[in-house]
């Protein structure tokens, strides 16, 4: 091979490797903060939690149905506001979209008391170790993940769902199409 050509190839290769390393480093550094957090379109990570009546709920068991996965706390005001809407939708979309309300790390008494006060009938589980919350990267409460029948996330709603129609629209989007 022509020596000059060979040199060009070597230079191109070295520069290519260096550029690759630099781009990789910059990319990983810039995405460090958002790494591990979920986005719409991602597969919802599987988890298993036991609800207040002792029943186990595994997310993958709900495939084929929409899931309204809600993280909440008894002390959080917007959580209190959205609960009645959720209760109403749970009745309307029974069998199509399931609600799973995950309380983050409070006591059984507090959650039980809250559920009785608001007359909630959908399954409520307590994430005592906050493991599921960490897996989903939930920061402010409430945060709601709308999960499609195929197990992917349709939408992530941060903050309270104050208006009933807004909640209905979310349910409508993830209900099975049949």
């Amino acid at each position, binding site marked *: 091979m022509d020596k*000059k050509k060979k*040199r*060009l190839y070597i*230079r*191109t290769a*070295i*520069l290519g490797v*260096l550029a690759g*390393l*630099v781009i990789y*480093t*910059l990319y*990983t*550094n*810039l995405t*460090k903060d958002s*790494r591990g957090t979920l986005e719409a379109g991602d597969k919802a*990570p*599987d*988890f*298993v*939690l036991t609800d207040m009546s002792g029943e186990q709920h*595994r997310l993958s068991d709900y495939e084929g149905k929409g899931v309204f996965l809600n993280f909440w*706390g*008894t*002390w959080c*005001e917007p959580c209190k506001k959205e609960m009645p809407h959720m209760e109403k939708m749970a009745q309307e979309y029974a069998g199509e979209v399931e609600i799973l309300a995950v309380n*983050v*790390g*409070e*006591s*059984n*008494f*507090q959650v*039980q*008391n809250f559920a009785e006060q608001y007359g909630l009938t959908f399954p409520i*589980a307590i*994430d005592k*170790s906050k*493991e*599921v919350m*960490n*897996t989903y990267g939930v920061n402010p409460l409430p945060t709601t993940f709308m999960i499609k029948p195929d197990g992917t996330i349709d939408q992530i709603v941060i903050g309270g769902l104050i208006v009933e129609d807004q909640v209905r629209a979310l349910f409508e989007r993830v209900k099975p199409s049949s």
Partner: protein
Amino acid sequence: MGKVKCECGHVNPHGTILCESCGRALTEEAKKENLVDMRYEGSARRSQTYNKTIIDKVWNFFSSVKVGIWIIVLILVAASFGTILPQEFYIPSNVEPEVYYEDVYGWFGKIYYMIGFHDLYNSIWFSALIAALGVSLVICSLDRVIPLYRALKTQRVDRHESFMKKQRLFAEQTGSLQEADMEKVRAELKKKHYKIREKNGSLLAEKNRFSRWGPYVNHVGLILFLVGAMLRSVQGMYVDELLWIREGETLQIPGTDGEYYVKNDQFTLENYEEGEDPEVFNEAINRVGTVAKNYQTDAILYHDENNGLPGAKPELSEVKHDDIQVNEPMKFDNFAVYQTSFRQDEMKAMHFALTNKVTGEEFGEVVVDLFDQQEMYDLGNGYKVELLGYYPDFDGFTEEGEPTSKSPLPNKPAFLFNMISPEKPDGEVSFVEIQNTMEPLGETTYKMAFKNLETRDVSALTIRKDLTLPILSIGGIIFMIGVIQGAYWNHRRIWIREKDGSIYTAGHTNKNWHGLKREIHTILEGTAVPEPEDRQTD
């Protein structure tokens, strides 16, 4: 762009200044100079020879030492700006940086934040500067070490007299070399560990050539260092997490993917007692009150055998007990768990006595765990206390009169009790907060008298893992080897040649000319071989 053929017959790469073989000057400029620049043996630095494609242009840009030095200066200046105000990482986490910088540092802080200096070391342009330095190091080194290696490898024993004439140490004398003199010179050279090559009545003595590779070895170390730093951002290579854990709690260790759990059995803070070691501590104790002796978390490490699905009940098997003290971390796998901080006396449980307000008689004690409450506390004999509501961080009442809590943390606990007694089987409602009791539904005969508070300490542990440390230390060691190699040894050469009735001698070293001159003096002393003179006057 052809090759350059020297009069001696050697074919040099384009751009060569001094013939690699005989040392004749090949460029007009070099021919005119009195002393030649020997830094790269007059070899063709590749960067200066091609400038055609975009690849060559990029290559040449980074190949320039001038550019490299500019990059270093820019990094130094930029890095210094980051030290004017505290970085975002160090400001209190409960305030927005946007507000913080302006509030604390005024207009300067505002501008500082706007430019992005508050998070300078993670900014893309700072990372890009560091990356440019890495690229510059690689290309500068490659472009110099290869031609230099070639030139030193192909150098001839019998250098052309014009090459010798342009050396800093040089002498010329008519006459011819005597074998007796040469014998002595050889012996002296050998004593000084020179490697001797001879050809056609010419002699080249050389030693410590490896010293010339010092800077490049040093650069390899630096590049390794940069690679190590780069690997920190690769997932799994570097973990730095904080875990607040209360006494008695068992929590997942962050950064271990749920594989490990830790239990805080007890947190201890010990202080030095007055008189314990009077000479050392009495003065300090008198001045500041207390001097801490030990911060310690008695920890138990568990492995979760049922890891995999978040939320699944962990099956913990004990790995070990360890006392975590400052500078005495608990180590497992590649992790180290350090004692970082603590908070003493967090509220854990409250004791109340059901008391008759008039007689003061007590009918039993209720212990409310602030983290796990019961619905009903049965005191026997028809006395019961029902918990109607618990507000861990009581924050007043809503318009509807409902008590609210502003966080899930038991900072200011309040309780709504229903006190059931034989006289009042339906119960009487009492709202109890710290140092205050309310009777929202009318006056009661009983009250919940506060008796006692159980507290516990909270320990903060830092979880660290750094797999890049070995790479960083190897990089550091190679860096130092390069420095020593280049700084401690000198590459020295001595040429002796007889041609057309004249004796030429010359010497070269990459540093410490004085040392070389002394060495040559002892070697040539007592011989007819002329001693080269230093022609650089400065």
